[in-house]
């Protein structure tokens, strides 16, 4: 994974974080923790910097945009469990440097 990717990913998520920029200084004053996450689909890793209470939906949407995949055909997993759109790093106990794993939808019949 290159630094370039990190920048791009950061840019992808940038507008959303900026949209709440007006409130950010207050939150920063509270000393809210930022942590870096990586989303990996076994071909590419994409890095993100998020706050503890940022819904992971944002990260997932950014990843789908970045990789050009359909959200509904992907599954995101942390610690062997699915990530729900409303989860935040705090709610599922993420730490700095953790990975989110992305898998394709699994179907089977025969």
């Amino acid at each position: 994974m290159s630094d370039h990717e990190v920048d791009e990913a950061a840019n992808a998520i940038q507008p959303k974080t900026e949209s709440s920029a007006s409130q950010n200084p207050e939150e920063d004053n509270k000393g809210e923790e930022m942590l870096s996450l990586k989303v990996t689909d076994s071909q590419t890793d994409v890095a993100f910097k998020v706050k503890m209470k940022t819904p992971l939906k944002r990260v997932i949407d950014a990843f789908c945009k970045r990789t050009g995949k359909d959200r509904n055909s992907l599954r995101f997993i942390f610690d062997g469990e699915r990530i729900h759109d409303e989860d935040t790093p705090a709610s599922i106990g993420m730490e700095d440097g953790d990975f989110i794993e992305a898998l394709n939808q699994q179907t089977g019949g025969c």
Partner: protein
Amino acid sequence: MTSLYGFKRSPAPRASKIGVETQTNKRRLLAGDFLRFGNHRLQRDAMIGGQFSRFGDSANTSFVSHQKQSVENQLVPNDAFARSLIYADFAAETDKKSREIDAEIQRIDDLFVKLNLENAQKTLDLVKPKPKPEPKPKPEIKPEAEFEEEPEIVPLTAEERQEVTSFLNQRVSSNTVVAKAFRIDLTFSELVALKPGKWLDDHVIDIYLAAQLDNLKQVYVFSALFMTTLKEFGLKRTKKRLKGFKNIFEPEKLIIPLHVHGNHWTLAVVDNKKKSIYYYDSMSGYEHQDSNNKPTGKTSSSIHELRLLKEYLQIQSEVLGTGDSEYLIYDRMPCPQQHNGSDCGVFMCETAVRVARNQPLTHKQSDMPTIRQRMALCILKLRS
């Protein structure tokens, strides 16, 4: 009248005939010879005890004649009454003894007969082994009796069928979320997989198994994506992955859906009590077919996945410090087989539910449409 030794004397009327003067002799006899009589008795008893069988009655006769002489010599020789008294006593005594011996022989005979009967009964029991194997199979059946009763696959009522049909045929876009449960948002496109002939995906399987087995404390259901995650990303991050997990060695059984060959659902069950991994494949032995019904040359052996699972359990037990982690793999468990190329997910779900509930695996291909409808009904109920 009773005799010296308390026997009833049979020739009793003789006393009156003999008269009064004999009474003194009798008294002398009673008083003086009691000791001697006692001695003779002992002697005779010894004879009867030791030699009765050999000499028979002759021993008694010789003794009686000897006794007769000695009594005649010492007592009044012509006293018929005294003689008769002695004879009577001896007769009674001998009679008693022989009766005792008869009783003894009878007792031994009885014992012998009883013993013989017992032996005969034993031999009969040995010869007649058929009644025994009948109770024997019962304990063998008992392990099967561990199974709960076989669940009945009840066809839906007309109302339920109507409800399910409208649920599966509602007019919404494919991305519409139709059910939210167990942290899964099920979209309509995933739900319609429950129509006959379609392939199930991980969301449907997870939501159904969670709904069916969430209330069972002794069973922990893994996500259908769990093993794929292990396969794709390896075990290197396993330790990291564990921190959010509860102790997987606590529940009796772990239900782990496996996605193999990219197109097939199978089931692995970890039994923590028996330290075993069981593998159920609804298409074991069949060659896999591609979408044009041509065999792909792949048979359903998923030993790679099972070894990975075993390795995972090993690492997990090291992290948790639970000690023994040697699991045996049974990779060909008998289970109902599918006869088409679309029902493996349904078979897998039904097998998982039945194994978790300890029910016999008796479902078959013809039950599948009903089970599909039941699954849809189950998800439908979660919605509200």
